[in-house]
């Protein structure tokens, strides 16, 4: 009997994804929005690994690797954008102040 059944994994991943989604919806600070995105990506990766363990297939962990690379790229580009916006003299990290497409 494994410690986690697939149903428990799905429940945990749903809870994690909901927390990340709530973070994206509630917080306006861009650093916190990126962290919430990472939480959501982790929840999706957890579902892949759980399904791979359930059906005993290595494809789940292959998808986990790909999601990891995607998260690394997304975090790097997002943080570069944040640093760029901050260096252009924006006093706040509020995501709603960037609606004029003027950098």
């Amino acid at each position, binding site marked *: 009997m494994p410690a986690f059944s697939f149903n428990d994994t799905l429940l945990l991943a749903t809870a994690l994804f909901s927390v990340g989604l709530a973070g994206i919806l*509630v917080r306006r*600070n861009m650093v916190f929005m990126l962290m919430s995105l990472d939480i959501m990506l982790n929840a999706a990766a957890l579902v892949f690994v759980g399904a791979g363990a359930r059906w*005993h297939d290595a494809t789940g962990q292959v998808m*986990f*690797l790909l999601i990891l690379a995607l998260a690394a790229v997304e975090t790097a580009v997002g943080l570069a954008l944040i640093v760029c916006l901050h260096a252009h003299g924006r006093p706040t990290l509020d995501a709603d102040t960037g609606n004029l497409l003027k950098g």
Partner: protein
Amino acid sequence: MHALALLAASVTVVGAIMVITRRVAVHAVLYLVVTLLALAAVLVMQGASFAAMLEIIIYAGAIMVLFVFVIMMLNLGQTDSTREKEWLRPRAWLGPGILATIVCAELLYCRRPLSGPAPALAPITAHDVGLSLFGRYVLMVELVSFLLLAGLVSAFYIGRNRMGRH
């Protein structure tokens, strides 16, 4: 579910909740590291020790260091917290929250536990993952390398543009 599994899962969820409710960004990064470590424990309990190692090394190691560097560079002000607090009055979120709770309760009520043969107990090792990764999914590896290259080039371009203007 075992007690250890329950403990790791609850640490994960509580850590994630603490991440999105902190005011100071560095505290949120610390909680996010704890969340990722607990998630790595969950992955180990599912027999995916290779994925857990990658989670610790890449996520809790590399990506979190990136976050800490950027937060150190940013010198954050506290001006947005008043706006966030203003947005979080119960008038704003009570109606959608109740409706979303109803839909979520319907989903939980209707869910069927997944039945079928018991899963195999043997863990999936790095050997299996490597054989699958560089056998059937080698095209995926190439595409991911393109993605990483594109991310590298775009991050470099954004940084270079900033240095050029100022």
